[in-house]
């Protein structure tokens, strides 16, 4: 099976450790992962902010770059949802029938937890992470992709982990892409409640399948000097006794 990693522009630029963790994890599970260097962005920021024509070249590039692979895996629920739910719409609105056909014919795109549980059919990925962790199910992975409790099943199988249930977990953290800038006050109010729930768990680490939400909640956790770290699901699942996550070494 030819598996391509879609890192997302956001992770590529701001959270490369997540991408490295995905590669480590998938290789440990026996996959050969390829990273097509022509990839850039799924177009979500433009699409969700109302700039739909701007998405057309991004969607076209995506279909060209990932054409021919058996599966695409991405460490982001919201970017995966953008590709699966809306790439067809972008092509349709642009009236580009060839692009629409290319989108339809493209390989299946999986969010990381879906790929592990549904495609590789593993829940115990051989990870070791001896820390108290709570997990925030991001809105797009929860409601658009319907990943259900796959991420939690993966986390529960991690050796040494002390998994704490997050109260009101399904409430949005208030990120919402450009919402965080356009409606900064409401966004902050939502984030404050999420932070309150995270702190109530007593967790050292907040994890999620989207670094965008983690950047938002983590930005507030950091500003408030709470001492709680954020870590993408992939980085916890990649951690082993032999190579722990460097960022949490001191915890």
């Amino acid at each position, binding site marked *: 099976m030819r598996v391509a990693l879609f890192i997302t522009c956001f992770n590529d630029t701001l959270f490369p450790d997540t991408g490295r963790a995905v590669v480590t994890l998938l290789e440990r599970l026996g996959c050969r992962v390829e990273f097509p260097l022509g990839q850039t962005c799924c177009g979500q920021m433009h699409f969700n902010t109302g700039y739909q024509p701007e998405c057309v070249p*991004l969607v076209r590039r995506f279909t060209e770059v990932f054409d021919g692979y058996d599966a695409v895996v991405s460490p982001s629920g919201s970017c995966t949802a953008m590709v699966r739910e809306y790439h067809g719409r972008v092509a349709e609105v642009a009236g580009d029938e060839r692009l629409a056909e290319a989108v339809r014919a493209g390989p299946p795109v999986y969010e990381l937890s879906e790929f592990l549980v549904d495609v590789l059919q593993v829940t115990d990925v051989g990870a070791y992470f001896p820390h108290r962790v709570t997990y925030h199910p991001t*809105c797009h992975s929860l409601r658009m992709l319907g990943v259900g409790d796959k991420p939690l099943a993966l986390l529960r199988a991690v050796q040494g982990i002390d998994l704490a249930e997050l109260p009101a977990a399904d*409430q949005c953290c208030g990120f919402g892409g450009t919402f965080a800038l356009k409606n900064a006050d409401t966004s902050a109010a939502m984030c404050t409640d999420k932070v309150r729930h995270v702190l109530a768990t007593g967790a050292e680490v907040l994890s999620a399948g989207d670094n965008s939400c983690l950047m938002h909640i983590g930005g507030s956790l950091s500003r408030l000097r709470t001492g709680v770290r954020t870590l993408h699901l992939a980085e916890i699942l990649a951690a082993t006794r032999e190579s722990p996550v460097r960022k949490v070494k001191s915890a």
Partner: protein
Amino acid sequence: MSDSTYLGMPPFPEAARTALGDTQLRSNLAHATDTIRRKRAAVVAEVDDWEELREAGRAVKERTLRHLDTYLVRLEERVTAAGGQVHWARDGAEAGRIVTELVRATGESEVVKIKSMATQEIELNETLAEAGIAAYETDLAELIVQLGDDHPSHILVPAIHRNRAEIREIFVREMGAYGTPAPDGLTDDPARLAEAARLHLREKFLRAKVGISGANFLVADTGTAVVVESEGNGRMCLTLPETLISVVGIEKIVPSWQDLEVFLQLLPRSSTGERMNPYTSTWTGTTEGDGPSTFHLVLLDGGRSDTLADRIGRQALNCIRCSACLNVCPVYERVGGHAYGSVYPGPIGAILGPQLRGTDTLLDRSLPYASTLCGACYEVCPVKINIPEVLVHLRAQVVDEGRERRVPKAERMAMAAARWVLSDPARLAAAQRTGALGGRLLSRRGRIGRLPGPLSPWSDTRDAPSPARESFRAWWKRTH
């Protein structure tokens, strides 16, 4: 496009900022939405085929809207045959004129009203007041809003922003000016407050010669109007007056009683969190010696035909005004209904308002952005309106209109620049190197506390991560 938002309403973010600072409002809303969310979840969980019911609701609405012309003509025939009169109103102003003339023709100067979104949408009370006609709201929460000279902030529970101490104050202060005053020594005990409202309203019910309502549904096959309610005030308004005038949006139609059955299951569980609402009133034209002897049905377009023409936006017309989307919306829960600036707040308001009214005002252009697109609204909607999909669609409309004129230039330029960078991996790699350098200049210990210019709203309350020294693609190239 004739119907306005509340006069002088600022764009959503500004109104939200004010609301977020109101600690009493925040606590009232958090308590009320949490309570009603739990109730809804409990009664929905009882229904084994809830998802099938939702799908049936969506399908009935879509089929009806596809053949709306046929059903509307059928309805008019049946209502007329049953002794009612049907009037067609292009917009709110026309509906207001029709109703005013109908009331004038009775010679009356006051009317009692059942809670109705359509009459609020067209600002009927204000129109009637200008003609010297007093319209009394008889729903308890609408009474609170009216006596408080306030705006409703929720579709189902319009006084959700008030707690009972505030309600007591309003009753004591205002009731006497409009009729039976509040009893002496009124406390904020809910039963005592309800009794005060009952005494105040009873006088109005018994005196009124004209009732004005909306309708939750219109059954085309028989020409029947349907109102579901909880307090019995509706039943009073529908049966006691001599003349009944119902103002109803053209999308409220269902073909048959079999279709109606689906919605009578979906609506109460979604809205009040009850298995069944206490009162369901149905009336077909007029009946000699039973209820009003004159019945007028005013069918309102008010932007609905335009909405119907939009392939993606038209699903907003499926709405049965249950308000489940408001109760689960994390934005609504924190800012309340007034920030949405019209009678339709919350997620449904953010897609319905800008479609019915158009996107001419700053407020209406801001509403499609009043959402994180978290999807909680879509998940609970009993008629499966994909609200996030419509929000994004309307954002595109706002941006496309603004390309010619009004969108802030900085955003458009930033989006164009981002598209240019993201269209080419070499440009992206170059931008990453530049960003990493800039980030290092701004950051302290891997965190950025203050971002420049348009990004500053982020760093007002949140630290930002420093761009990585080595991007993922740079690492991959170096190691593979």
